[in-house]
C-alpha cells in the first residue's frame, strides 16, 4: 500500500480529474445527468481530500520531489516528469481542488438544463481544466509547469466557447486563446534561455543558477533580468495584466461557474503562482520587480475605473478580477510574495462567491445580466443576498473579513516600496468598494425593475447552488485569519511561517506599529466612507447616470479594445492583404519563377555554343586550355 501513502498518493490528485475527464468525455452520450455530475464532482471531492492529506504531510524543510519518469533527455539536459510537493504547491492544491469542488457541485444544478451530451462535455472540460491547473502547480520544473500552463489555456478556450453556436462567444474564446499564446511565447523563450544558460529547468536548481555561497552564478544579471521579464510577459497573458488583459472580461462569455473557476481557482492565478515560484530569480532582478509593480498598480487602477461604469453584473466582476490581480502583481513587484499568495487565496474565496452569487441572480432573472434591470432581489433571494453581501464586504476589505488582511498586507508592502504606489493602491481600493457596492445596491436594493414575467419567476436557487455559496461565504469571512498581522496578534501571521521554506522571509523592512495602525485605520475609514457614498448614490435607482465624456470613456473601457483593433489587428490584416496581393505574386513568386527563368535562359545560351562546328569545339577547348594554363603559371603562386 505504498502507493496510498504520502507522498505517492499525491499522484492521484491530478490523475483523478483526468479520469473524470476521460469517463465523462468518452461516455457523455451514455451517462445520465446524475451520473455525470456525480463523477465530475466526486473526483474533485476525492482530490480535495487527498490534497488535505498532502497539505498536512508536507515537510517543513526541503520539498518532496516525486519523479514519475524521464520525460525529456537530450544530451546533458534532463527534464524529468516530476511533481514538487511543498508549502506553496500544497496551498494551491487546496485552493484549486477545494473551490474547484464547490464550483463542480454548483455547476451540477446551474447547467442542468443542458442536454446530457453537452452536460458531459461541460464536466469533462471542467475536469480537464482542473487537471491542467494541478499539473501547473505540482510540476517540479518549468516544462511541466508550461504543459499545465498550455492546458489551462486550451481548456479556457474550450469553456469560454462552450456555447459555440454563438459566434460572439467563439470570438471571445479565440481572443482569450490568442492573448494567452502571445504571453506563452515569451514564457517559452524564457524557458529556452534558462536551459541554454543553466542546463536545467528544475525549481530546485534555481538557487544554483543564481549562485549561492561558495558557488558562482550560472546566470549573469542580464540573463536574470531577461528571463524574469519574459516570464512576467507570460504572466501578463495568463493573469490578465496590461497589455494582455482584454481577454478576461470577454471570457465571461462562458457559463458563469466557468467564470468563477477561471477568475478564482484556476487560470488567472497561474501567473502569480509562477512568479512566486520563481521568487529567487525575481529577487535578483530589482528592475523587473519595479516593472511588475508599475504594471500591477496601473492595471488595478485602470480596471477599477472601467468597473465603475459597467452595467453587466459579470463584467463588473470581471474587471474587479483584473483589478485585484493588479493588486497581487503590485505585491509581487514590492517583493511581498507571501502577500500576493495570500491575496490569491482570499480572492479565490470571495471572487468565487461573488461569481457564483451572480450566477444565482442570473439564474433567478431568467438569464438577465443587466443590473439596471434588476433591483429589490433581497426578498426573493435571501441566501444569495446575504452571501453576496459578505463577498462585497470581503472584497472591499472591512475588518475582520478575509479581504482586509490580504489587502492590508499588499498596501503595507506598497507603502514600503513607494508611497506613490500606496496612494494609487489605496485610491483603487476605494474605487473597488464603491463599484462593488454600486453593483450590490443596484442588484439587491431598491425596487424590482425587470419585466412582470421575470418578477413572476424570481426564486431562490436550489441547494446545490446555495450550499457552495454559504461555504464560500464562511471562507470569505474566516479565510483571512491565517495571516493576521503581527501588530494585531502575536504569531498571527501563520502563512508567512508556513511558506517560509519556499519564500524566504525578508527582514529589514521594519515599520513602526503606529504607522501600521495609521495605515490600517486610514484604509478602513476611507473604504467605509466610500461604501456610504455608494449607498447614498444608489439606494434609489435613477435612470440615467451622469453623462459626461469621462463616463463614456469608462463605459467604453478606455477604448483599449478599439486601440488594439486599430493599432495591431487592422495593420496585421492590412499586412496580410499586402503580402497576398503584392509580396507573394511579385516578390516571392517572382524570385522562384526567376530562378526557373534564368535556368531556361542559361540553358538556351549553352545550347547556342553547341552549334555542331567541330572547329569551334576545338577552339573552345584551346581557349579553355590557354585560360587554365595562363592562370596556373602566371597568376597563381
Amino acid at each position, binding site marked *: 500500500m505504498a502507493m496510498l501513502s504520502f507522498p505517492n498518493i499525491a499522484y492521484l490528485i491530478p490523475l483523478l480529474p483526468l479520469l473524470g475527464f476521460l469517463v465523462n468525455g468518452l461516455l457523455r452520450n451514455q451517462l445520465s445527468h446524475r451520473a455525470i455530475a456525480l463523477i465530475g464532482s466526486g473526483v474533485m471531492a476525492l482530490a480535495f481530500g487527498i490534497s488535505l492529506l498532502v497539505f498536512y504531510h508536507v515537510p517543513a524543510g526541503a520539498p518532496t520531489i516525486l519523479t514519475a519518469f524521464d520525460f525529456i533527455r537530450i544530451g546533458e539536459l534532463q527534464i524529468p516528469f516530476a511533481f514538487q510537493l511543498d508549502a506553496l504547491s500544497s496551498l494551491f492544491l487546496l485552493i484549486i481542488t477545494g473551490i474547484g469542488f464547490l464550483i463542480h457541485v454548483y455547476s451540477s444544478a446551474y447547467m442542468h438544463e443542458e442536454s446530457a451530451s453537452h452536460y458531459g462535455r461541460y464536466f469533462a472540460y471542467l475536469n480537464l481544466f482542473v487537471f491542467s491547473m494541478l499539473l501547473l502547480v505540482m510540476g517540479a520544473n518549468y516544462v511541466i509547469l508550461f504543459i499545465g500552463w498550455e492546458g489551462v489555456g486550451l481548456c479556457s478556450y474550450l469553456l469560454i466557447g462552450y456555447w459555440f453556436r454563438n459566434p460572439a462567444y467563439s470570438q471571445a474564446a479565440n481572443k482569450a486563446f490568442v492573448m494567452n499564446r502571445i504571453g506563452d511565447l515569451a514564457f517559452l523563450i524564457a524557458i529556452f534561455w534558462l536551459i541554454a544558460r543553466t542546463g536545467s529547468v528544475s525549481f530546485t536548481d534555481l538557487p544554483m543558477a543564481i549562485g549561492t555561497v561558495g558557488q558562482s552564478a550560472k546566470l549573469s544579471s542580464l540573463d536574470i533580468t531577461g528571463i524574469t521579464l519574459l516570464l512576467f510577459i507570460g504572466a501578463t497573458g495568463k493573469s490578465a495584466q496590461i497589455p494582455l488583459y482584454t481577454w478576461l472580461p470577454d471570457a465571461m462569455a462562458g457559463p458563469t461557474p466557468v467564470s468563477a473557476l477561471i477568475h478564482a481557482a484556476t487560470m488567472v492565478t497561474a501567473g502569480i503562482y509562477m512568479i512566486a515560484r520563481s521568487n529567487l530569480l525575481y529577487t535578483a532582478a530589482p528592475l523587473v520587480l519595479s516593472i511588475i509593480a508599475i504594471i500591477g498598480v496601473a492595471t488595478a487602477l485602470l480596471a477599477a475605473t472601467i468597473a465603475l461604469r459597467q452595467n453587466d453584473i459579470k463584467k463588473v466582476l470581471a474587471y474587479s478580477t483584473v483589478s485585484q490581480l493588479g493588486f497581487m502583481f503590485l505585491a509581487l513587484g514590492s517583493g511581498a510574495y507571501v502577500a500576493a499568495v495570500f491575496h490569491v487565496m482570499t480572492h479565490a474565496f470571495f471572487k468565487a462567491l461573488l461569481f457564483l452569487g451572480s450566477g444565482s441572480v442570473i439564474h433567478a432573472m431568467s438569464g438577465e445580466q443587466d443590473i439596471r434591470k434588476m433591483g429589490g432581489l433581497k426578498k426573493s433571494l435571501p441566501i444569495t443576498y446575504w452571501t453576496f453581501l459578505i463577498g462585497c464586504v470581503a472584497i472591499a476589505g472591512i475588518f475582520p473579513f478575509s479581504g482586509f488582511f490580504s489587502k492590508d498586507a499588499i498596501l503595507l508592502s506598497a507603502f514600503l516600496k513607494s508611497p506613490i504606489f500606496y496612494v494609487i493602491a489605496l485610491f483603487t481600493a476605494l474605487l473597488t468598494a464603491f463599484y462593488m457596492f454600486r453593483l450590490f445596491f443596484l442588484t439587491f436594493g431598491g425596487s424590482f425593475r425587470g419585466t412582470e414575467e421575470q418578477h413572476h419567476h424570481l426564486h431562490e436557487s436550489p441547494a446545490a447552488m446555495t450550499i457552495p455559496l454559504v461555504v464560500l461565504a464562511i471562507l470569505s469571512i474566516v479565510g483571512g485569519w491565517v495571516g493576521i498581522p503581527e501588530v494585531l496578534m502575536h504569531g498571527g501571521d501563520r502563512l508567512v511561517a508556513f511558506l517560509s521554506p519556499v519564500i524566504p522571509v525578508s527582514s529589514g523592512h521594519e515599520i513602526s506599529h503606529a504607522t501600521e495602525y495609521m495605515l490600517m485605520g486610514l484604509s478602513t475609514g476611507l473604504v467605509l466612507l466610500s461604501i456610504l457614498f455608494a449607498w447614498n448614490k444608489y439606494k434609489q435607482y435613477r435612470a440615467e447616470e451622469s453623462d459626461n465624456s469621462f463616463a463614456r470613456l469608462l463605459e467604453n473601457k478606455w477604448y483599449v479594445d478599439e486601440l488594439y483593433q486599430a493599432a495591431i489587428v487592422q495593420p496585421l490584416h492590412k499586412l496580410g492583404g499586402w503580402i497576398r496581393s503584392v509580396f507573394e505574386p511579385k516578390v516571392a513568386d517572382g524570385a522562384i519563377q526567376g530562378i526557373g527563368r534564368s*535556368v*531556361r535562359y*542559361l*540553358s*538556351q545560351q*549553352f*545550347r547556342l*555554343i*553547341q552549334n*555542331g562546328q*567541330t572547329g*569551334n*569545339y*576545338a577552339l*573552345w*577547348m584551346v*581557349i*579553355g*586550355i590557354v585560360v*587554365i*594554363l595562363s592562370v*596556373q*603559371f602566371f597568376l*597563381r603562386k
Partner: protein
Amino acid sequence: MNLLLLAAAWGVLMMFLSVSGISRATIRTIAQVGMGLLFLSTVAELQGIVFYDLNAPAMLGVDRYALVMLSVLSGCGLLYFLLSAKDMADVGSDYSEYFALIFFIFCGFVLVLSFTSLLMLFLGIEIVTIPLYILTGADKRNLKSNEASLKYFLLGAFSTGIMLMGIALVYGARGSFSTLELVGASGIPTQLLLGGLFLIFFSLAFKVSVAPFHFWTPDVYDGAPTVFTSFMATLVKVAAFAGFLRLFDHGFGSLKSSWQIWAGILAVLTLIIGNMTAVYQQSVKRMLAYSSIAQAGFMMLGVYGLGDAAKEGMILYGASYSLATIGMFAVLTRMQDQTVEGFNGLAKQQPWISALLAVFLLSLAGIPLTAGFLAKFYMLQAALPATYGMAVVIVAVIMAAVSVYYYFRVLQAIYFREPSEGVSFPAFAPGFVRILTVIALLIILLGLQPGWLLRYLYF
C-alpha cells in the same frame, strides 16, 4: 590479368566468326558467353584465382581498386550484352565485328585501370577510343553517324596529341614513364613537369567529357547508333574516370596543391553546363547525352576529392550510373518516338516497364533508397574535405536538384500524361523485361547495402 587475356582472345575469336557464316543468334550467344566469362574471370581474380599473370610490374599492376572496377565494368557489360546485343543487328551488317571491337575495348579497360607507366595509360586510352570511332560510325548509311564519327575522330586525335605532348613533357622532366616516380623526392615540381601534368589532365578531361572539353559529347552521343551511345556513355566513361582517378591519386596526388583546385572548378563548370543544357532538351537521347555530362561533373568530384572515399564513390557511381543508363537506353532504343512526349502515358499500358524506368530515373536523379543517391552522397563526402570543398558541394547539391527537373519530366510523361494519338508502345520481350528487372533490383540493392559491393575493395 585474367580479363586481359580473355578479352583479347574473345575479340580475335569474334573477328574470325564474321567470316564463318554462322547465324547471328549463335554469334550473339558466343559474345554473351564471352562477356560472362570475362565477368567470372574478374570475380575469380578478386577471390585470388589467377590463371594468367603478366609479370611486368613496370608496365601493369592490378590492385583491388582495379579489380573491383573491372568486375563492375564486365558485370555491366554482361547486362548490356544481354539487353542490347540484339539491337546491334539493326545498326549494320558487321554484327560480329561490333562484338569484337567491344572486347578489344575491354582490353583497353584493363590497361587504363592497371597501368604503372604513362605509356600503358596512353595505349589503354587509344585501345579504348579507336574502336569507339568505328562504332560511332557503324551506321554507315546514316549521315549523322558518319559526321559524329568524323567529329569524334578529329577531336579525339586533337586530345591524343595533347596527351602525348604531356607525357613527353613529363618524361623530359623526370626521365621516366613510371607513374611511381612521377614526383621527385623533393616534392617540388619543375615547370616542365607541371606543364606535362596539365596537358595530361586536359586530355583525360576530354575523354571523360568534362567542361570545357565536353563539346564533342552531345554531338557524338546523338549521332552514334543508340545502342553504342549507351556503351560509350556508361562503361567507357566510367573506365576513363577510373583511370583518371588512378593517375591523379597515385601519380600526381602529392602535387594536388597545383591542380586540385582546377579539378574542382572543372567539376562545377561541368555540373552547371551539363545540367543547364539538359533542361532544354526535347529528345530523351540528347537529354541523356547532356545528363551524362552532368553525371561526369559528379564523378569529377572524385578526382577533386581523392582518397579512399573517392575510390569507393567512383565504384559505386560507376555501377549505379551505368546500370541505370544502360537500362534507360535499352528501353529508349525500342521506343517509336524518342522525345519526352513519346513516353506519354506509358504507365497505363506498360506498368511494369514504367516502374523499372522510374527506378532508373530516380537513381539517376539521386533520390534516396536508390544506388544513385548513395553514389552522389559518397562523392560529396569525398569532395567535402578538399580546399573549397564546401562551396563545390553546395553547387553540386543545387545542380543535383536541377537534374531532378529533367529526369522527372520523363517520369511525369510516363505517369501523368495521356498517350498521344497514333503512338503505340512496343511489346517488350519477357527476357528483356527480366534483365531490366535484375538491373532495377541491383540499383535498389546497392542503394540499401553498398557495402555488398564496396567491401571487395578491402581485404
